């Protein structure tokens, strides 16, 4: 049945938005900053995966071993070099900084890589499988599964490990965390590292089925934003829920109404959420 196909596609895509939403919510939850440049990190991680494939023949699945650590470092570095200077600044300065970062990263990519689309060919995970009449693109499916694993891994990390709990405490109350002897600076840097690492994981997988260009950050960021606001800023479960709902909405509208209005619909939901229920569906 066609409807099921659309719904399944929606859920699969939704998981992908969800993981990006999760990375956003992680940073917001810990230090109340919205990173407008998140989409650019995604784009850059995809370029890395591409070049690892192009020059060394690494399949993205193996590139994971490289991209995740590299981007963890990238995120950590971003914090140390840039973000830590605006932690205490006004929201206005913070918005400005991450916006500037977005422009900077995007156009550096633009100048260095050029505007042409790239594509990784014949990744291991390509293909399609059929489950009772419903076609699943294997690459997307693996991505979605990886995202779910990412969620589980992060939740386990946050609740079961000492560092994770320290992160949670820092998120709740910076002063309290300090009084417990938690190195708050390190927690913030760690949060950035983890967040960008998650992005890199998502990006590496996405590169198996999507073309790569310098401007892709836009599309994903918007959808991730919508997911995160809908689900509730700061809530892990909310990111997942929000992502899936947005994925479903986008696919259903794209199919039943028109592809162009798919994006408009997402924006409309986004704005409605901001107006009617800015805390989102799930509160942290």
């Amino acid at each position, binding site marked *: 049945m066609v409807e099921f196909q659309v719904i399944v596609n929606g859920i699969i895509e939704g998981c992908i938005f969800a993981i990006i939403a999760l990375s956003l919510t992680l940073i917001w939850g810990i230090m109340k900053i919205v990173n407008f440049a998140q989409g650019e990190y995604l784009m850059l991680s995809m370029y890395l995966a591409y070049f690892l494939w192009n020059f060394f023949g690494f399949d993205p699945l193996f590139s994971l071993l490289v991209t995740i650590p590299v981007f963890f470092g990238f995120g950590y570095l971003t914090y140390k070099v840039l973000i830590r*200077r605006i932690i205490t600044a006004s929201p206005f300065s913070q918005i400005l900084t991450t916006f*500037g970062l977005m422009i900077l990263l995007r156009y550096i990519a633009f100048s260095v890589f050029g505007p042409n689309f790239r594509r990784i060919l014949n990744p291991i995970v390509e293909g399609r499988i059929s489950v009772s009449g419903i076609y699943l693109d294997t690459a997307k499916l693996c991505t979605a599964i990886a995202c779910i694993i990412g969620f589980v891994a992060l939740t386990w990390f946050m609740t079961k490990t000492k560092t994770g709990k320290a992160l949670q405490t820092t998120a709740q109350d910076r002063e309290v965390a300090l009084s417990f002897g938690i190195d708050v600076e390190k927690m913030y840097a760690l949060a950035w590292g983890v967040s960008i690492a998650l992005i890199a994981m998502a990006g590496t997988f996405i590169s198996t089925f999507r073309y790569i260009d310098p401007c892709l950050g836009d599309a994903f960021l918007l959808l991730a934003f919508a997911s995160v606001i809908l689900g509730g800023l700061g809530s892990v479960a909310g990111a997942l829920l929000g992502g899936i709902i947005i994925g479903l909405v986008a696919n259903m509208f794209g199919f039943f109404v028109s592809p162009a209005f798919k994006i*408009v619909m997402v924006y409309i939901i986004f*704005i409605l959420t901001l107006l009617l229920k800015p805390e989102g569906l799930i509160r942290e």
Partner: protein
Amino acid sequence: MFHKIQSYLDFLPKNWIKYLPFGCFLIFSLIFPLFVKSSFHRNVMIFIFFYTIMAEGWNILGGYAGQFSVGHVVFFGIGGYTSSLLLVNWGVTPWVGIFLGGTVAAGVSALIGLPCFRLREYFFALATIGLAEITRISFNHWKAIGGTRGITLPMKFSFYNFLWQGRLPYYYIFLAFALASVIVVFIIDRSKMGLYLKAIDQDQDAAESFGINIFKYKMIAFAISTFITGIAGSLYAQYIQYIDPPSMFPFMISIEIIIVTLIGGKGTVFGPLLGAIIFIPLSEYPRTYFGGLAKGYDYIITGLLVVLLAIKRPEGLVGFRRG
């Protein structure tokens, strides 16, 4: 009666030395075309005037009232489309169309302001981005007004049509509008309303507890701000003589307006002007001199500027100087 005159006089600046740099720039602009004939350089000046208009407009809402709109390009586009449609379809002279464009933009702002002003900081900014994108996509699909094909203005150069062959008339007209926009902000800055807006920006709750109707003043600021931005859009349409959604609703303009205002200093009269003077040459000259090699170099500079500004000096170069 005497008191009334007194309070109007209160208005005039007490120390005029502060205005000297501005006066110099004004004189410089007036005589510039006499010495510089190259249309490239004249174009740069025209863009400085342009961005001054838009930045001063944004400044009223974002700098004075503290409502950070990141989707201001919407009003730019609406203004441009309104005046162009009026000209192409009904032959309405842009001299009128420009102000109608501004009015329509202000009208739309009322619709947006109504629900959105309760949102704070980040959320308002996000909402304006969303609205800007919705508008751009909608215009892309709106066949009745050209959709992606756009609208071409008739090549009939005349005063009535607000179309000229050379740049010179545009130069002086835009200069006049830029001057007007600075004057508007000047008036607001020195008025009671300016005082209230600054109070709202600094401490909204306290301002409200003093009886200031936050909503009313934000709406007024929004309306004036978008009126000016709409006019800028119309002027732009008349200048490039062809409009389509990508040229009338480019996202980067929203950002650039903000950058320009911030470089100079938001919430000040001359900040946006100063910002335009600094920013435009910085982005226009490299773009041409680096040629095809440096795609996006100008934006890299932009990005770098923004980041540095945000970290080092968020109040801008003019800062909180009371001009």
